């Protein structure tokens, strides 16, 4: 009986062996990783790939042009890949051990990748590192080390519909500089089909009021979500909403503040400098002006958003990638990007040039002086998500309760 079916057993053995072989292939393909990555080989001229999440053709073309010009100068092959879902494609790259060499990296994702060792901490080697805005450097510092070069940044400002402003009989003098004035003009601008002030239903917008009240979710490493300043800020927003002079863009039937503004559903919105591009493309007929956000009880305050040029620790050509990033962050490149897709340069020395070129957007870059970062520790995105989900029903809830329920969550990330 034992010897009855040698062939069958042979066949089983073959199948099993080839299964194993294939499994092993699968396994090893998956694990080409850290061990052989991080090659410090300086002399390599392995091609450099750049993964970007593009806002549109203008951005893609500008980045491609800048990368190409570096490639022809340095003789290293370089290519730009436009991600359809940047977060996912980055994650896949890191897991496979073959990530893109250079990539856009948001503050949300930064801490996670820095913590698991995916990022090459090259920031300290940058020649011009002291020229970056301090708050931007802080955003990309993990365990006291600057990891990557801030690509550019955006701040929030008050965007005003000029036609509606005039209709309401308001002048240049009336541009609000305090909370009372803001609520006042919002009331004057509110009509049957237009609400005075609109903003997206998220702390990424409402946080400006917390900043102006002198608050913030994390202050000096301490969780301060339930601070009195934050409660005061949300109460102020809630008051405007219950008075009917301010509303969420989602309640107005728009996807974001800019859409509500362009469609004339809101006479003023709190948005970033990216709104300039959106207005040119989607609502070229709407005249608008930009002002700095008003001062609250705690002085001036706004929020800033930024990305950096990440370099993968597993890159085959780290030196080449660094050289490329240095090229992409020169004042010339940054001004070219600014022209192409409306971002603000991350270098302080370029700010003056930029304001000269775009005087109408000057309030945005002025915000860079006092802008706050949102928490970006690992897990912060989820905490903000939880806060945002509660803010959606701000009008019918108690701001104090919302903030108190978020406080323990902020504590868990603040201690990192």
């Amino acid at each position, binding site marked *: 009986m034992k010897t009855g079916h040698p062939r069958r057993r042979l*066949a089983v053995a073959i199948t099993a062996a080839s299964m194993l072989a294939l499994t092993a292939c699968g396994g090893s393909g998956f694990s080409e990783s850290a061990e052989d990555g991080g090659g410090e080989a300086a002399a390599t001229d392995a091609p450099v790939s750049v993964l970007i999440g593009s806002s549109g053709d203008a951005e893609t073309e500008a980045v491609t042009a800048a990368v190409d010009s570096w490639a022809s100068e340095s003789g290293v092959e370089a290519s730009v890949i436009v991600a359809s879902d940047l977060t996912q494609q980055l994650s896949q790259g890191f897991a496979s051990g073959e990530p893109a060499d250079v990539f856009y990296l948001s503050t949300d994702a930064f801490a996670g990748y820095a913590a698991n060792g995916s990022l090459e901490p090259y920031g300290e080697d940058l020649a011009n590192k002291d020229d970056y805005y301090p708050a931007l450097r802080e955003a990309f510092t993990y365990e006291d080390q600057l990891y990557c070069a801030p690509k550019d940044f955006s701040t929030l400002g008050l965007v005003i519909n000029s036609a509606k402003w005039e209709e309401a009989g308001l002048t240049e003098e009336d541009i609000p500089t305090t909370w009372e004035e803001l609520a006042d003009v919002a009331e004057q601008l509110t009509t049957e089909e237009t609400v005075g002030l609109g903003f997206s239903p998220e702390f990424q917008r409402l946080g400006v009021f917390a900043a102006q009240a002198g608050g913030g979710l994390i202050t000096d490493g301490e969780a301060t979500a339930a601070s009195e300043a934050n409660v005061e800020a949300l109460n102020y927003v809630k008051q405007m909403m219950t008075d009917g002079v301010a509303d969420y863009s989602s309640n107005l039937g728009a996807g974001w503040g800019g859409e509500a503004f362009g469609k004339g559903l809101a006479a003023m919105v709190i948005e970033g400098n990216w709104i300039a591009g959106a207005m040119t493309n989607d609502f070229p007929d709407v005249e608008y002006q930009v002002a700095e956000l008003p001062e609250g009880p705690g002085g001036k305050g706004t929020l800033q958003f930024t990305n950096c040029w990440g370099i993968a620790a597993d890159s085959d050509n780290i030196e080449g990638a660094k050289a490329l990033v240095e090229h992409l962050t020169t004042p010339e490149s940054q001004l070219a990007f600014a022209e192409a897709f409306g971002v603000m340069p991350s270098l302080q020395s370029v700010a003056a040039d930029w304001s000269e070129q775009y005087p109408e957007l000057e309030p945005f870059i002025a915000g860079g002086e006092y802008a706050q970062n949102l928490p970006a520790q690992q897990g912060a995105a989820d905490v903000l998500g939880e806060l945002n989900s509660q803010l*959606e029903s701000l009008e019918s809830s108690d701001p104090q309760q919302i903030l108190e329920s978020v406080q323990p969550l902020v504590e868990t990330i603040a201690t990192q």
Partner: protein
Amino acid sequence: MPSTPTTAAEAPPSRVKRGDIRGRQGLAGWLFITPVVLILGLFLVVPVIMAAWVSLSDWTGRGSPFSASVSFVGFENYSGILGGEGLIGRDFGTAIRNNLYYVLLVVPLQTALALFLAVMVNRQILKGRGFFRTAFYFPSVTSSVAITVLWLFLFSATGVINKVLSFFAIEGPNWFQDPRGVLHILFGLVGVDQAPAGLRAPGFLGISGWDWLAGPSVAMSAFVLMAIFTTSGTFMLLFIAALQNISGEVQEAAMVDGATGWQRFWAVTLPMLRPTLFTVLTLGLIGTWQVFDQIYTGTQGGPAKTTLTPAYLSFNAAFVDQQWGVGAAIAFVLFAIIVVLTLLQRWALRERDVPRRRRMVPAGVSAGSSAAAIPGTAAPADEEGEQRR
């Protein structure tokens, strides 16, 4: 085994020959299934094993999950999501709540609608049956992303649905931005708009009793409508195929017995559709528990996390938060839920009325069929016996 001389003399050549053929057949068989075994192994078994390992490890998404720097953490990831503690625990509870209501609404409604459409389209008197069949099936062949985008437009605050509702003097909600639970709205109508004292404390999976009773949010209801709209067509096809398998004679016999149309449907057609019904319910159950693409393209879990589903949460935990272990653990819990529910449903739909059906079959036929069954079952045993020899 005692063997007579004759068999002993004849047996060896025949045994060798037979064994040869069997062996060759066996080899050929294994060769034929090798591609499938390899493909399934490479793309199904290996990834599943890897995911199982990841769900038990602290892998952070960099390099191989089998490298030395990744350590085993036992069921930490599982206890994190199932304990109802912390943000991820409560998010998981919320996701299960949302998806549960989604399943409870979509599966029965889509099955009922599919069956209804199939019966209608299958009627001989209906003119233009081909047209209706195509029309009902059309949503199923359209990509879910396209339909989701269409839905976002239809159900926007100023969209077509709200326009139509306004003709009836109904002010439609801002569908995809409305986090209110449908049951909460109903409770509100009878004056209960705050959580009663007994339902406030965090309960199962960290979700309070009041929140478990929220029902699907208005936003989720729009997704429920969409799922019913898109999948009914597919299942209608399955039902049509099954209906065409029911011979006209059975219906005629029922008519001769004086059964009305309604009785025939409940007592004849529906019982005969039981296998198809099981298929449709199972496919529906699996599809609804895994709902992902609509959420990903439509709402990303919002408003107020009321369209968060376990599948989307799993994706988010892994790809966005770099919590790969947690993401994999959610996927396995989801898998367990689906398996358990499918088994439950199999048990619920099992054939309970076998004896009664036997009674209806004429005695002779029954005896014949049971007699026929004996050689059938005996045959493999016979082979076994021969092989053992």
